[in-house]
């Protein structure tokens, strides 16, 4: 299952995009979509732990409402401050999980991933947050 998961994911994702694009669920169209999905080149895949994938996916989805909350806080903040931070990274051997992490962190307006540091063990993060009350330095 772990070995098959990347293949199933990429085929399923491509087929879903194909169906959305053509908005046609007839057997012939599904077949064409499946052939296209199989023919497109694929990255070399590694076994993917399902639990970690589900966790990363749900965290990414939760980041969307959170992003709106952060946007509102930024809009109504009287002053903001910039900072650099870092966060432990997931296993770099699993590109999909790293992608989901980068997506989750960058989607929210407070934080942007700048890259990996410390030999890929941590994400380097730039953050822009409402300033805390005591130091009201305006940018």
């Amino acid at each position, binding site marked *: 299952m772990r070995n098959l998961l990347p293949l199933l994911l990429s085929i399923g994702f491509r087929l879903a995009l194909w169906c959305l694009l053509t908005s046609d669920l007839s057997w012939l169209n599904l077949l064409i979509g499946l052939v296209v999905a199989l023919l497109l080149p694929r990255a070399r895949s590694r076994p993917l732990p399902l639990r970690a994938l589900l966790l990363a996916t749900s965290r990414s989805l939760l980041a969307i409402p959170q992003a709106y909350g952060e946007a509102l806080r*930024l809009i109504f903040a009287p002053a903001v401050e*910039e900072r650099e931070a870092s966060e432990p990274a997931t296993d770099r051997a699993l590109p999909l999980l790293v992608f989901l992490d980068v997506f989750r962190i*960058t*989607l929210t307006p407070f934080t942007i991933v*700048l890259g990996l540091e410390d030999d890929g063990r941590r994400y380097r993060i730039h953050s822009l947050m409402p300033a805390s009350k005591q130091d009201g330095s305006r940018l």
Partner: protein
Amino acid sequence: MQGSLVDHTSLLLLGAGLTLWFWGSWPLLENRSYLSKLHALSVADTLGSALMLLGLLLRIPGQWPLLTLALLGLIVWNTIFGYVLAACSLPARDSTQAGEQR
């Protein structure tokens, strides 16, 4: 009655999206740091546009497959593009993989 509720909600979403667009694009003209402009742009581009697409989705439900595709593409593409712009704004660093590939 239901139709007008959908209409009003869609107008509200479009308006909110437009507000976020202006709020996030305005800092581009100001004298601020590059990265803080990117933070604001992620509000405008990603979140504002997503609200607008949701508004359109309510307005033209018949086109939902394409609008969903646009929504998906927009959120993922904008976010990752923001990351790429941020990562490229830094001088190449020795410890990162990008630095090694140079």
